[in-house]
């Protein structure tokens, strides 16, 4: 059984790495959770973001960061649901519940 992997994203320029690592981990049968915060919430508007949401088991963003980056919190990015517009608690879940961790 493959290990599970949590990815914490704080750099807006690393989306290609997020996607690449998620694809590789899923190909190995891993469970993957991704959480975006601060300026990395801009990634939710990347055209490949819905693909990431399809691939990963769980994707969420920090709603407070999203708002501070100038977005309307009613404008839920494609691929997410309202409950995935979340808080830093998601980062805590990654650390506590996933076998492996990487920040990007």
């Amino acid at each position: 059984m493959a290990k599970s992997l949590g990815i914490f994203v704080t750099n807006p320029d690393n989306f290609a790495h997020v996607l690449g690592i998620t694809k590789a981990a899923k190909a190995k049968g891993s469970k993957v959770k991704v959480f975006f915060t601060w300026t990395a919430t801009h990634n939710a508007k990347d055209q490949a973001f819905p693909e990431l949401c399809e691939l990963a088991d769980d994707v969420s963003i920090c709603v407070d960061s999203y708002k501070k980056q100038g977005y309307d919190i009613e404008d839920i990015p494609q691929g997410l649901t309202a409950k995935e517009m979340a808080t830093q608690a998601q980062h805590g879940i990654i650390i506590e519940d996933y076998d492996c961790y990487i920040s990007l």
Partner: protein
Amino acid sequence: MKVLNVYRSEPDETVKKLVEIVTRDRDSDSFDLYGASPDYDTLVDKIFDADQTICWW
């Protein structure tokens, strides 16, 4: 304890110093994420093999 150091850009002196201290007397590995077309498959294997992954800027 096995530490994996992932570099998103070429490590500067500050990062090199921190890595030197963190990996002292420990098993360690590294992966360069800043080259063209990184091998994500290899990176994920290394992450799974390590006890801790640090992804430097």
